[in-house]
């Protein structure tokens, strides 16, 4: 394909061909759109970063992105508050939720992808049906149930909620990923002496890893920043139970005027996500772009 515009044999190389201009035109346009999109998403983040580095007075008076008089004061203040504890809570909840989600959905997705059992389609559609329900709609009944079970004001309860709420989407995503792996691999494994679980463990798990990484990252980011469920389940407990998003909300309330502190807390909250993403992005990108595992 590329050869048809670059190295033509019909003598048009000498001049600049229209197709070339068109191609560069398209390329330029693509980059322009990318640049706009990136700016659109990056600007708020940079603005928060900028706010967090200002002195309180400069929040309302200056519009410059790079503060002329940067200060780490708000970070000191934020770190002295309970934020590290809240981060610990959030990390605990996020890691347990992701682990739980993967433990449930990996075998389930394998089963839905590989076995043809009675009611398979119905079950899959039912699972999808649950996904259609917005968690906000059912947050009150959920709260009631959790309270009856004595699971409010506890991280375990929140983790269970997250797992339950995220299973449908994760299951579908992972099943789709299993579907791209040729079933001949399973057959070969069975002839080589694997039972079904060993087939999953020794043969399919590695090829399906990018899919698992996508599910893990997606759910980690989601649970890390989730607010409504966390607030509903935990706010009646002490501040020691809070997750990061709740903590930032508290900041917002208590120190309503202290925008620099809110911004600094937000930045502190974003950093682990970025670290996590950068660490796993190789898998993430592969999981999203690469379809089947060929041969």
């Amino acid at each position, binding site marked *: 394909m590329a050869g048809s515009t670059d190295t033509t044999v019909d003598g048009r190389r000498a001049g600049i061909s229209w197709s070339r201009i068109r191609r560069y035109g398209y390329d330029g346009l693509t980059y322009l759109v990318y640049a706009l999109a990136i700016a659109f998403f990056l600007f708020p983040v940079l603005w928060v970063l900028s706010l967090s580095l200002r002195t309180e007075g400069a929040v309302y008076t200056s519009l410059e992105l790079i503060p002329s008089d940067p200060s780490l004061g708000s970070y000191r203040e934020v770190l002295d508050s309970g934020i590290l504890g809240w981060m610990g809570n959030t990390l605990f909840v996020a890691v347990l939720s992701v682990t739980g989600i993967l433990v449930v959905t990996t075998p389930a997705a394998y089963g839905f992808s590989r076995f043809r059992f009675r009611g398979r389609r119905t079950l899959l559609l039912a699972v999808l049906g649950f996904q259609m329900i917005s968690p906000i709609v059912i947050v009150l009944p959920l709260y009631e149930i959790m309270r009856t079970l004595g699971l409010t004001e506890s991280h375990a309860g929140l983790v269970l909620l997250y797992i339950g709420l995220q299973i449908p989407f994760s299951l579908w995503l992972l099943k789709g990923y299993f579907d791209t792996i040729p079933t001949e691999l399973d057959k*070969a494994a069975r*002839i080589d002496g694997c039972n079904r679980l*060993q087939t999953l463990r020794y043969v399919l798990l590695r*090829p399906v890893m990018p899919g698992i990484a996508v599910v893990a990252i997606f759910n980690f980011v989601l649970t890390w920043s989730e607010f409504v469920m966390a607030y509903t389940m935990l706010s009646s407990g002490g501040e020691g139970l809070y997750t990061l998003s709740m903590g930032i909300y508290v900041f917002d309330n208590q120190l309503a005027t202290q925008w620099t502190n809110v911004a600094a807390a937000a930045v502190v909250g974003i950093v682990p996500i970025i670290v996590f993403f950068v660490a796993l992005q190789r898998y993430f990108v592969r999981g999203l772009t690469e379809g089947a595992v060929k041969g």
Partner: protein
Amino acid sequence: MGRLEIDRLRKTFGRGGDKVEAVSELSLSVADGELLVLVGPSGCGKSTTLNCIAGLESVTEGEVVIDGEVVTEKRPEDRDIAMVFQNYALYPHMTAAGNLEFGLKMTTDLSAANRRERVESTAELLDIGELLDKKPKSLSGGQKQRVALGRAIIRDPAVFLMDEPLSNLDASLRSTMRTEIQQLQDDLDVTTVYVTHDQTEAMTMADRIAIMYEGELQQVGQPLECYYRPRNKFVAEFIGEPAMNMLRVTRRGDQFVADGFEYPVPERADGLPSGEPFTLGVRPGAIDIVEPETGVATGTVEVVEPLGETSHAHLNIADTTVTVTTDGPGSVEEGTQVDIDFPAQRAHLFDAGSGVAVARRDGLPGDQTESYPNPRYD
């Protein structure tokens, strides 16, 4: 040792309305060390049959017997079989050596050193020693298929099952690998069931071929037997390239007649009833172009496809197309009229309704004093 018997195998998929019978009443036996090729058009149930032998699919009815032992209910790894797949199915995260070793690891308690030894000797046999540390991703198609063969060989199975192992390779590689597999199978003397829809593979590799159509076995026999003495119209048309010409004829006295065509009833077909319709089949290679007015039919040459040594001429005989394999360029001209004839031994007759062959010839060309050209492939 590895004698394989399949007894009245039936396999259905699905229930109720969308039930598919993929294999019906299939009985076959494969002798120890024999290479049986299972051929048939796409969807005829070849893979399903193979999977049932392997234990990858449960059978609906019937039995699979390996070396006198009924294995129908056994798990694949307990059946003493190994399988090679069309898309290689190598474990992508393991090296070639890891792929070879995996089955031994799972099914035997050989020590790591012993396993390594087996891996190396197998690799040597297949000439893949230098590839052992590579992952499948960095191997070429041919190399992958060798590793896949190695993974089957290393288990030292009683029966080899191969499901279109060469169909992902390009033509030239396919013919080298074909010879190689054949030699390997000969050397190892392992009973093999080889599935393909490529009849060149079937004819050249097989000790016997089994032809399937719509889940049913049509004929089992040596390749030339199936070529010269097809049991029915399907086999006659499926085997041989270009396909056998089929003419609707009616017996009138001592002639088979159709529009623009008259052929004396061969001696062996004397018993066939007069006034009845039949299908008369003749291979393009069996037909000769003869002097005007001396043939059994006259046709107009519509298209000539030159292939080099030979050409395929498509004749129009009373609106029926008849293909003739002729000598190279210049032997026939498009647009001319030619007469054709063919020897009685090369005429195949089929029941017009059921397609079952009637009045089949005895013996094969090799047994006869007269000599016939060999079938042409490739």
